[in-house]
Every structure is written in C-alpha cells, then in structure tokens.
C-alpha cells in the first residue's frame, strides 16, 4: 500500500492519497496519469492491468487501486 501511495504522490504531490476518494470522477487523475500509473504498477508489483480494467470505479481511490492489484496478485498464485 505504501509503495502505491508513493507512486501516486509522485504524480500529484499536492494530493493526500490516503484520504482522497473519487480520483477519476473528481478530476484528479486524468488519462495520462492512469497510463503512467499502470506502467509504474507493472514495474513495482509486476502485475499487468488490462485496458478493460481501467474504469473510474477501479481507480476511485488508493484503496480501490490496491484492491485491484491485490486481486491480480492473488489470481496468479
């Protein structure tokens, strides 16, 4: 989780990602951020997130993003 928050803070230092909700609908993360994010996640956690999973719901908060990563990791075990 901490690694993820770090990645997010790199993108937007001005946002507190531990509390922020509605990251996509609230306009904090735009499509560029999301694409940068998934490549960072790929780098950091070695999971591939597919285009179909790039929904506002999955990227609503740090928690939902982490849940997505975790589900991916579990799936691979």
């Amino acid at each position: 989780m901490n690694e993820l928050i770090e990645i997010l803070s790199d993108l937007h230092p001005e946002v507190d990602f531990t509390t922020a909700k509605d990251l996509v609908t609230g306009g904090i993360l735009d499509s560029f951020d999301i694409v940068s994010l998934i490549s960072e996640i790929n780098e950091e956690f070695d999971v591939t997130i597919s285009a179909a999973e790039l929904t506002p719901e999955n990227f609503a908060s740090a928690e939902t993003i982490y849940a997505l990563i975790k589900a991916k990791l579990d799936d691979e075990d």
Partner: protein
Amino acid sequence: MLFTSYEFLGFLLVVFIMYYLLPGRAQWSFLLIASYAFYFMADPRYLIFIAITTVSTYLAAKAISDKKQSFDIWFKEHKKEMEKEERKAAKAKEHANEKKIFLCCLLFNLGILAVTKYTNFTISNINSIIGAFGNQGTLSFVDLIIPMGISFYTFQSMGYLIDVYNGKFEAQKNPFKFALFVSFFPQLVQGPISRYADLSQTLFEEHRFDWKTVSFGLERIMWGFFKKLVIADRILVAVQAIIASPDTYNGFYAFAGAMFYALELYADFTGGIDITIGVAETMGIKVTENFRRPYFSKNIKEYWNRWHITMGTWFTDYIFYPISASQFMMKLSKKSRARLGNNLGKRVPVYLSSFIVWFTTGIWHGASWNFIVWGLGNFVVIMISQELEPFYRWFHSKVKVDGTFGWKLFQIIRTVLIMSSLRMFDCYRDVPLTFKMFGSIFTKSSLSQLNADAFISMGLESYDYAVVFIGMLVLVAVSLVQRSGSVREKIAAKAAPVRFIAWYGLFMATLIFGAYGIGYSASQFIYNQF
C-alpha cells in the same frame, strides 16, 4: 434530411404523435421503424451499410457473450478437478477463441469505414507519390458513397462490441433492440457517440407522456435552433467569404475568420446536439451530454474533456487505454526506462499512445492531411503543456495568481486562441495555405484592415453582425447561469409570465432573426460528413 428543414420538423411531429399514441410496449419498435425511415429518406443505399454493421456486430457480440456464459458454467463445474496451470490454459484458450470472433468483426467494420471514407484519400496520396517520381498520377478516383453518419454509428457499434468482449455487460439478445441502438435517428447524423450501457437504460423502456419531460425536450430543441439559425448560419457567410479569398482576407481578417469560425462551430455543433438531446428527451430518452461549456476551459486537456465529450472518451477508452496498457507498451516502457532513465523513459509509452490517438482523431474527422495535421497539432500542444506542468508549479509557487479571476480569464482566452488557431486547418484548402494564413496574422495584420466596409463586403450587413453579437452575449450569459445548474429548471421555477416571456421570446427571436429560408443556402450541419 437537415435538422433545420421543414421535412425534419414534419417528420418529428409525426414520430412524436405516433410515439405517444402507441402502447408503451410498441414504442421502441416504432422508433426503430422511424429511424430506418429517416435513413431511407436520406438515401436508400445507406440502409445496406448500416444493416451490415448492425447484423455483423450483433452476431459477433452475441457469439462472444454466449461463449463467455457457457464457459463460465463449464468452468465453475470443472474448476475443482483442474490444476492451476490447467485452469489458466483453459481460460487462455477461451479468451483466444473469443478474440478471433472479436477481431474479425472489428476489422470488418473498421474496414468498411476505411474503404468508404479513405479510399480516395489514399489514392490521391499514391498519385502524388507517383507524381513525385516524375510520372503522371495514374490511379483514378473511385465513386464511393459515404453513408450518412457512418463514423458515428461504426464507433458506437464497436464500443459496444469491445464492452461485450471485455465482459462489461452481456450482449443484447434482441437483434431489433440492438438495431435501434445503432440507428436511433436523432443521433445518427452527428452523434453523440452513445455508450450502450447509458443509452439502453432509457431507449427500450416504455414512456408515458409527461408534460415536464416533453416541455423540457422542446425547450432544448428551441435553444438548439436558436444557436444554429440565429448565430451559426448567419456568421457562416462571413467565415466562408474569408476562407474563399485568402489573398484578400489575410492578416487580421484571417484572425477574425478563425474567431468567427470558433463561434460558428460552437453554435452549430452544440446547437445540433441540443436538438438531438432535446428530441430524445421529448420521447423520454436520455442521450449523454456532449459538451460542458468547453470555451471556459483553462487548458487544452480540459477543453478536450468538455468538447465533443463522447468522442474524447471513446478515443480514451477504446484506443488510448488499450494501446497504452498493451503488452507491447509495457515492454517498451521497461526498455525505455532502462535505456533513457526513469524520468524520460516513462514518458515514451504515454507519448506514443497519445500520438496514435491524435493521429486517429485527426483522420476520423476527415480524410485529408488538414485533419491529420490538426490532430497532431493538438498532440503537440497537449504534450508541451504536459511538459510545462513543473514550470507552472514553480511559477505558481513564486507568483500568487493561481485562482484569481485575471489568471482564469487569461487561461480561458489562451485556450480559445490556441484551439481557434488549430482549427484553421479545418477551414483552409490545404496545409501549406493554412500555415501561410496563420503566419499572415503576425506579418500582415495592420490597423487599416480594421474597417467596417471590409466586413460588410463579406456578405453580412452591420445589423447581421449586431444580431450575431447579441446572440453571442446570450450564449455567454446562459453558460454563466448554467454553471450553478440547469437553466431550464431555473426558468421553470419562475412565475408563469416570466416563463412565457423567456420561451416565447426565444421562439420569436429564432423565427424572425434566424438565417433560414430563401436567400440563405441551407448549410449542412458541419458535422454531417463525419
């Protein structure tokens, strides 16, 4: 059938009355018939194209959906018997099967779009290459019909196919319901590009006559006609005059032309969408909004989130994300990070994906180099502003202007100026001329060009400009009010005489000051051809 023709209004009236006279169960079927009738009246040959897209997409989506379902059942039953590796293999095999169907349908439909829209563009490019080698252009152009709205309904259908393929929702089982989704007549000609998940919510429902819904729909239609007839079709005359004589109208006039075009395009396109959404609304159907006061955007990225929204999100969801999340991009990202360092390397995939998206967006708008350069121009501007972000952050930490009215105004004006400059590609004959005219703004503008006679010679009288100007003020005022919620709701809350004056005034203003009827060539909605 133009939105601004008596035929369309007559057609609407008949459809509207029938729609509410019919029993609710029959309403959506009737809309399908009406939509096909609408398309048939434009050109009977178009029907073949839309029917092919409808049938192929319906079948492919249904096949994929059925396969998914039966696989899920089978998988649940046999899950426990299998090893992890076996399970993975089974899933991969299923996925590959679905992918075959998906790709066949996708390529087939995009192929139709490509052939009808881009064959002659390709031929002309081949000819100029041949010409460059000293031969005469040898290939002759093909006389192809471009079905009305093909770009819109193809994109809408493919969005649906991709969503089904990704398992977002099950395929529509009823082929006729799906046919209505593809052909729904108010949005057939110029969008918006609806998502199945949105439009299907209200499209197939039964709708009882509800006075508030209907009157709100009619108000929206009237507002659309006001924008289209009073503003867009009037200023159009000057725009065309300026574009037609680049030798006469350069320098400041080219700038004025770009500004007039910004106004015309906005009034025309948003007016057309207002009519579309309003027509759907009178029948209780909710069509997604396509604009959110785009000219109040603070930067180009925001502008593209607020202008032609359904197209922007389509390109983001179905092109930008799939490309940038693809295996290839992930690998490229790793490689470029290794080679170029983290900071620069991570940019490569985003930039490459953006480049592809903007190239596609450009060519989607029209089969010409003008649109391609226009699309890439947007790409360049967006990348520059992306790169300037650290600078802005630094700037704002030093100079406290962020959030002030003056700074916002500066941002808004900057955005409008940049977008209007890019749109000059949309106006002039070819790319070199566009650059020349853009350059002339800086080299040939002079105060002597600022004379009323020159503007009168563009085919509009001073009172025409006055009407356009007042119309523009109304647009701005409405947009400002709209920031705090629906203008129609606000008017509806007022006393009866106020409501009457507002709507009757709008109606009479359109009727009297609209640039329609004999003497005005019925200009097509600008987005028709796309």
